[in-house]
């Protein structure tokens, strides 16, 4: 690509801050020569208020013990940075205040900041203006969060030997990134680390949606949990799994199925589990355990045994909730949503590419985002993509070793290479010369810098 001589002369400060600014958490930290997950901090991207009306900002939540009825204000809405009043409060608390966890002087720092694909242009402009006019970072690049994954050593995930230091700085040539996070799930094809915008597709289901659905089911069937989003997210993370055979599992968990039939249907273990609810007063975490149908358990729940010194234990029995909730990622039609599931979304994304690229994309699928950690998710995704893909295409699919921090790590690898970093950063001086309209075009790839 033609580049003017000017960028090479630019001088960037040594320090680079990378922020993967998610709706649920931001992943942030300073670039180091050989970055690892420990260099990346996961900070709640929210302002929270507990039932005692105390307000917690971002990282302060680490010290919060009582999450009962806690409410959140999130500056990132549906995956997009919408409210800068709240975001600035959290960022100041994280990066600017003297006692901040990642305190820095923006004027002597390069910033690599991520955004979700298909961000409305007005929000991008807001972001650029805040970065250069309010924080005054020395240099800045705004890129798609999925794109940064290309700078990690992807091939080793497929069991291919390390490429060697000479190609370390180069992004993977073809990469199809499936990012299933808090707000939504996206499919992004990358070529040499650059997104092919026209082929990016989004399924409007993410972890938040799944948590809310579980919350609704539990509120119908067990307790009113409508004000317990935080708790239900924990329940979801500990009990949910993606079924390999949905019909079979639904039959196995039908309340009318007799115990003997259940036994014969089940191969290895029962699906039904109990989730013991946390006791915030006693600082006790909630946890899952095998279902205990005995009377003792029921009595303990009723409080009949509380005289014996044991605390009253509250639990709920969960069965088909375990797999009907994450099933939505594969079958949004189960709730009447007129969108294809994640495997179909991958194929819709490919349809925006020349077919000659399909084999390389299908052979290099990387999965990131919190939902990929749900048990059974990867197996089901791989099975269904294989079924949909052209028979002659090899399908290789891998989950990042750290699916939450993978984009941040990619950004850190990029930043570790000064030449590569210089090629993407825009300095504050350039912004002042050319303005935010020009900046938007540079970051979208339509104008070479």
């Amino acid at each position, binding site marked *: 690509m033609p580049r003017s001589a000017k960028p090479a002369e630019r001088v960037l400060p040594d320090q680079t801050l990378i922020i993967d600014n998610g709706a649920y958490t931001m992943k942030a930290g300073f670039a180091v020569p050989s970055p690892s997950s420990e260099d990346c901090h996961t900070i709640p991207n929210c302002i929270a208020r507990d039932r005692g009306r105390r*307000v917690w*900002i971002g990282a302060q939540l680490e010290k919060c013990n009582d999450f009962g009825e806690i*409410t*959140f*204000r999130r500056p990132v*809405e*549906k995956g997009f940075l*919408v409210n*800068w*009043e709240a975001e600035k*409060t959290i960022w100041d608390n994280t990066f600017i205040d003297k006692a901040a966890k990642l305190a820095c002087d923006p004027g002597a720092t390069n910033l690599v900041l991520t955004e979700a694909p*298909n961000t*409305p*242009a007005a929000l991008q402009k807001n972001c650029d*203006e805040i970065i250069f*006019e*309010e924080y005054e970072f020395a240099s800045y690049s705004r890129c798609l969060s999925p794109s940064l994954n290309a700078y990690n050593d992807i091939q080793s995930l497929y069991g291919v030997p390390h490429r060697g230091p000479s190609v370390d700085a180069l992004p993977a040539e073809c990469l199809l990134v499936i990012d299933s996070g808090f707000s939504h799930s996206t499919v992004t094809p990358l*070529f040499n680390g650059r*997104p*092919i*915008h*026209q082929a990016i597709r989004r399924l*409007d289901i993410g972890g*938040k*949606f799944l948590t*809310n*659905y579980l*919350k609704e089911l539990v509120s119908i069937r067990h307790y009113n949990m*409508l*004000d317990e*989003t935080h708790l239900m997210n924990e329940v979801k993370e500990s009990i949910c799994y993606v079924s390999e055979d949905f*019909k079979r599992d*639904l*039959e196995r968990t039908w309340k*009318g199925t007799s115990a003997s039939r259940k036994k014969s249907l089940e191969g290895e273990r029962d699906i039904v589990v109990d989730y013991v609810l946390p006791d915030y007063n006693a600082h006790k975490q909630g946890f899952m355990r095998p279902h205990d149908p005995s009377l003792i358990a029921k009595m303990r729940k009723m409080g009949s045994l509380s005289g014996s010194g044991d605390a009253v234990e509250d639990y709920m029995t969960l069965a088909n909730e375990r797999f*009907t909730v994450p099933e939505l990622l594969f079958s949004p*039609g189960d*709730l*009447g949503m007129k*969108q*294809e599931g994640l495997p*179909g*979304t991958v*194929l819709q994304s*490919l*349809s*925006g590419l*020349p077919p*000659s690229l*399909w*084999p*390389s994309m299908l*052979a290099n699928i990387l999965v990131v985002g919190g939902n990929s950690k749900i048990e059974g998710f990867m197996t089901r995704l791989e099975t269904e993509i294989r079924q949909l893909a*052209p028979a*002659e*295409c090899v399908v*290789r699919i891998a989950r990042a070793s750290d699916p939450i921090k993978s984009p941040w790590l990619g950004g850190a690898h990029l930043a570790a290479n000064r030449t590569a970093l210089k090629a993407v950063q825009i300095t504050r001086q350039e912004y002042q010369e050319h303005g935010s309209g020009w900046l938007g075009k540079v970051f*979208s*790839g*339509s104008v070479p810098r």
Partner: protein
Amino acid sequence: MPHVEVLPNSTSVRAPGYALVPDAGTFQAPAQQTSGKKRAARSLGLAGGDTTVRQQNAVLKHLAELDKDSHRDVQIPVPKDNAGRASKKTTLNVRRILMSQKTFANHLADEEAAIAQQHTGTSTATSRTKPIPNLKRASTSELQAIPGSGASQNAPRSVGGLPPSATRDPLDDDLLLKSYVPVAPSEEVMEALLSAPPLSYNAARTGPPPTGKPQRQFCEICGYWGTIKCMKCGARVCGLECKGAHDDGRCLKFYV
């Protein structure tokens, strides 16, 4: 047993132990007949069989509800000692952005309005600049032009007939890739692909699945197959026990 209908369903696993008979009488309920809106929806063939406009709206409302951060409106003001920090001079831009209380829905409406204006102004200018016809965001029918999911009309070449690559990459020796290495598109094609602008938020949303796949219906109480439909509100249940629970607490609640 009024207001109960057993539905023919491809996934139909009849609730064991029940033999419910469809009640033709209740199907003629006045509410079902008088609404002209609903009749119109039916004649338009909206969705499959038993979906009325009202039920579709209920589904949309439910989906929007599930996509919210909180089931009630949360107002958490920024703490005072943080809010007034901007001691140094702020630019007009910064002040405007920090004061903005626009939601994502507001921004989305703005984006859609801008797109609509563009279309009335310069008609097809944006699509004409696109170098490869296939790159245009495909319509729903075109999206199915993928081998395995339908006939391909717009794909420039079939995937099957690709010549082997002339240039060797060290990765070609990977056993998995050896069997099938396609020739990459020309540099011009790739550059055009990479510099094409992003889609709008709405245009990037994944489309519906190929038609013909019936929606699975579940009991709204216990989650088992919803083979029985409440004639009052259209909700699904699996059997009499759950129908009772539905009538007690939830009937008409979420569908009005």
